[in-house]
Structure formats: C-alpha cells, structure tokens
C-alpha cells in the first residue's frame, strides 16, 4: 500500500502556477493529486533532480515539470513544491 505524501506549496510555486494559466494549471493540479496518492505512478516520472541533492521533479506534461524539495517537520517528511516551469525533454 502506498502511503500518501505530504505536500507544502511555496509562495513562488503558487505565483508561477497562477502565471501559467489554463490548461496547464489544471494539468499541474491533476499531476499533484496523483503524486499525493501514488508518488511512484509511472506517468509522473518522479525522479531525483540530478544536479541538486534533495530535489526531485515530476512531470506535468511533455514540456512542463514541477520542482520539489524533500523537507522534514515535526510530523515527518514532506515535499515542498518549489516551482513549476517548462522543461523540454526533446533535446536529451
């Protein structure tokens, strides 16, 4: 059984999400909902951000990803939603 993850949105994430508008914002919320209950779902492509320890990314769609940071508070681990931005995977 998958344990639901805990999530905290950063102020920057909220700002970036609002700036993106639709339909990306809805896609991002859908991805987050999925991440909450099944973080290892293959469609999310949840992976460590190779350039920075403690950071991770999930896929929103072909061109957008969410940057997350692993954090801990007194109740345990959680993910901080750092930012959302375009991440074109077609170059690599």
């Amino acid at each position, binding site marked *: 059984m998958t344990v639901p993850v805990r999530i*905290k949105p950063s102020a*920057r994430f909220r700002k970036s999400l609002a700036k993106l508008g639709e339909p990306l914002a809805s896609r991002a919320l859908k991805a987050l909902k999925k991440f909450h209950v099944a973080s290892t779902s293959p469609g999310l492509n949840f992976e460590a951000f190779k350039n920075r320890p403690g950071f991770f990314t999930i896929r929103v769609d072909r061109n957008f990803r969410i*940057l997350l*940071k692993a954090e801990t508070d007194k109740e345990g681990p*959680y993910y901080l939603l750092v*930012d959302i931005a375009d991440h074109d995977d077609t170059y*690599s």
Partner: protein
Amino acid sequence: MGLPQPLVDALRDVEQAEKFNPAEAFRKGTEESIRKMLGEFRRLLGDLEKGVEEVKGSARDFLQETEREISCGRVPQDLDVAVDWLSSQEEDRRKQLPALLELVQKLQADTFSSRMAAADKARLLSACDRFITASRVIPQTLRDLRWSLMALRAEGEDPGDAPVFDNPQDLLDYLKTPSK
C-alpha cells in the same frame, strides 16, 4: 552579479555557425562547390563545437558562483532576471532547432544522392551527426542551468507560510484560491 556575461558572449559566438546554409552548393552541384561547402561546413562545425564547450563551461562557472553566494547566505537579487533570461534564450533556440535540424537532414539526404566521392560522403555525414548533437546541447545546457538556478534559489528563499497538506483535495482547494 548580473547576467552571466561569458555565457552571453559564448551564445553570440555560436550564432554564426548556426546560420550555415548548404543549399547553394548543392544547387550548383559541381564537385568544386560541394568540396568548398564541405570545407566551410567542417570549419563551422569546429566553431560550433568549440562554442558549445564555451557555453557549457560558462554555465558551470555561473552555477558555481551562484552556489558560493547562496552558501554565504546571499541570494543574488537578480537571480530571477538570470532565470528569465535563460528561459528566453532557450525558447529562441527551441524555435530555431527544428529548421536547423531539417536543414542538416536535407544535407544528409542530398549527400546520399550526390556524386561525391565515398570518403567525402562519409566525412560529411559524420559532420552532420556532430552538428545535430552540438545544436541540441546548447538549449539543453541552458535548460539545465536554469533548473539548477531555480533549485539554488529555493535554498535561499523563504518558502512562505502555506500549511503542509495531508489531503490532496485540501491542497487543490488551496491552490485554486488566488493568493493575496
């Protein structure tokens, strides 16, 4: 701190190589025109590959400089400007890339059907592959630098006072509410 000037310069240097257009040489179709084009192409490829190394090196330097600043507790004030600039540079190159790749793929096709010597064909096809690889590395480097800066920025800035959500619906409701 400002924009990463060495990176700005390195990107300007590769633009010349990206303007290569071999169509004229194939239109003429003479052995001399094709040989001349091949020489020019290989020279531009050399410039492009050198430029790519400069772009990668200056991106690495800029990242290390930013890391030093953040580790000293200073978030560079113009980090947002640098992230936005990288995004626009990457966007410009992303738009150019399909046309550039199409051009090189056309050159590959023309090479196969041309009357060039087999050794020249092999050299040109190999140069085409290298050109495609180098052209992809630049936007990829800009993208990776931008994302690394976004992560670094998060290490130095206040994440705000939002709660930690256990429940997905509460999180979604919160995110749908416009921030003040």
